[in-house]
């Protein structure tokens, strides 16, 4: 290799390193770089303090294998796992389907639709605790409003809803759907509004029916958003504590407990916080894949909202 060739090779290697460094520093130089760090530092500190530290502390608290041995020996644990799965799968999917249908309804024009929307949003705007406690009393088999209405109108009492595992679980899921349905309806409504109207107009010119427009424009364009919403809500539902705790209280006979309420019971009723954390940690094998899929779905793609 000639001297010139050697010099060129060294030059290329410097240029490569400089480019890598340039890319690593986000294309910033000197004072700009220092300013960027200064602006980012508070966020990094907050992220470390309120995201990394709690997660690491939680993992440390639930890291003793003996906790899981104790957990799996509790007969209520398996019941809670099954309930959690039912709660998440049914609660999220029924809600999202309803939200999708309702978003179509609220997409209509008219002042009364807007007025109805305001009323429809109220359950979501109401604080969770009084809302769920009201439902608990509303469903009370003896003195609740629902059975009193049934008696006044039809002369018979409904069942004691919270006294049976399956009706109790259905009530918890129903309450969860009722509380969060408006939020997801609004999100999907925003998605519908983002679909370019030109597409519908072009389809109309081509003689497409409403069903065709729905099947070939709305559905494909909304599919990604719908899936992201489902995944996100599954993550929320896995950790949801309020509905079960305040509606059925986990009863009867702890048959409607979910992992979140069982964890709270261990942590604060039995005063075994590590076992409580381990209970919630045991949902991680489901939670982590959900988050990974969610992240992958959030990548930008063409032809999707």
């Amino acid at each position, binding site marked *: 290799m000639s001297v010139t060739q050697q010099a060129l090779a060294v030059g290329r290697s410097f240029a490569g390193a400089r480019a890598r460094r340039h890319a690593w520093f986000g294309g910033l130089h000197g004072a700009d770089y220092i300013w960027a760090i200064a602006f980012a530092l508070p966020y990094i500190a907050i992220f470390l303090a309120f995201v990394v530290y709690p997660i690491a*502390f939680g993992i440390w*608290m639930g890291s003793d294998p003996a906790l899981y041995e*104790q957990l799996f*020996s*509790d*007969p*209520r644990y398996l019941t809670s796992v099954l309930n959690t799965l039912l709660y998440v799968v049914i609660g999220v999917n029924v809600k999202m389907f309803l939200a999708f249908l309702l978003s179509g309804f609220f997409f209509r024009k008219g002042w009364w639709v807007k007025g109805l929307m305001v009323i429809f949003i109220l359950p979501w705007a109401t604080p969770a605790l009084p809302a769920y406690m009201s439902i*608990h009393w509303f469903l*009370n*088999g*003896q*003195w609740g409003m629902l059975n009193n209405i049934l008696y006044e109108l039809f002369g018979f009492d409904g069942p*004691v809803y*919270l*006294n*049976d595992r399956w009706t*109790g679980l259905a009530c918890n899921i129903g309450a969860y759907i009722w509380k969060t349905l408006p939020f997801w309806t609004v999100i999907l409504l925003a998605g519908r509004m983002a679909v370019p109207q030109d597409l519908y107009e072009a389809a109309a010119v081509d003689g497409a029916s409403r069903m065709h427009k729905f099947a070939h424009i709305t559905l494909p364009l909304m599919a990604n958003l719908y899936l992201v919403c489902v995944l996100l809500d599954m993550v929320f539902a896995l950790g949801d504590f309020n509905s079960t705790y305040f509606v*059925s*209280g*986990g*009863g*009867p*006979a*702890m048959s409607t407990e979910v992992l979140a309420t069982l964890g709270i*019971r*261990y*942590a*604060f*009723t*039995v*005063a*075994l*916080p*590590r076992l409580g954390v381990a209970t919630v940690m045991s949902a991680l094998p489901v939670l982590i894949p959900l988050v990974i899929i969610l992240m992958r779905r959030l990548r930008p793609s063409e032809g999707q909202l």
Partner: protein
Amino acid sequence: MCWLNQGFIPEEDAAMRQVAEDYIKASGNKLDYSIMPFMALNQKTISALTSGDVPDLVFMDAPSSIIPQNAWDDKIVDVSDVVAPYESQLSETAKLCSTFYNKATKKRGYYLCPIKQGATPFHIWGDLVEKAGLKMEEIPKDWDGIWTYLKQAQAPLRSKGMRRLYACGLQITTVGPNDGNNLFAHFMIANGGENIVTSDGKLHTDDPKVREAAIKSVEFMTNLYKEGVVPPEALSWNDADDNNGYHEKLFMMDFDGTLSTELAMIKNKKAFYEEMKTLAPVNKNDGTPMKTQVNAGGGYIPKGAKNVEVAKDFMKYFMQPKVMNANLKAGLGRWVPAIPQLVKDDPFWLSTDMPCLKPYVTEAVLNPTLPVFEGFTPAWGQANAEQLWGQAHADVIKNGMKPADAVDKAFKRCNEIFAKVAM
């Protein structure tokens, strides 16, 4: 920093602030305190004990779910030196409710400075008893007899238009956290099974007398339920459901801890002074006097507290009989003093115009009492938290199990829990 338990009525909070302010004046020490609701205090304290970032003092009405486990784990400061000057004056039950086993030191010691104690009386709508054609003074003395007599009120009251009224607010709940366990413990005592756990922390499920008492208890309670004199929803009641239902006269009687049931209605003069009656259990089912369970409240100091000496000094001040008495009187007697002589010396306790106070004080202080079993071993707290006894009732009512089988199932699980906590 002191974390203090919010009371059930505003008067209790005012009384607590008064003690703190009086101490600041008397000692010259600074006391930074905050008052918070029981459940919040419970959760905050458990979190603090777990993380190690603890307050100097926690003052709690019923710390029996926290102290046994944390004393066992050596996470609480031994306060024997604070209690010692008053030890001879304290009730035996308050002493037992304040001493816990530490597995590091391998001995029991004082981990709670007891100030107050509370019992569980019957709360009865006397006007409904009369309306049903029954008489308060004819209520039998024995435990089962009380329930059996009062359940008769349901039919006549319903025939008078109270369509949804139930006679007995029996909390055979599996939701908890405490009411169902407390009820079961009293049924056990009434049936001669009070030795299910002894003060050495040992479980005696192998004692035939204990097993028989448990079977009788489960049988009696589930029979009441099946007869339809207990609201069906009682199986799923939470802590407040029985109070709310009782206050609305949806059932005629309730068996619930302290006088909070009555004091919550103190502004309704007719209800408080005329209609509501408070009744202390008298005899067990064998006719001998019944000891009811008493829980103690007070202050404890987490290990790692920065100002242990000030915390101890505050509790020394609080434990003075005069200060203790003034504080509990100001709280309208929902909790009674841990020093029995006080209720004998101060006419407030037994000669007040509050009709609920005398029977309650008699039960909680003057009658023979037992400490709650949680103090004997953390394992009992876990058995309660798993709602084993409520589960036994549910097994009989919902799963058609025989009471003996339901009890054996609960005992089996209880044995497993106790096996992990060897004293």
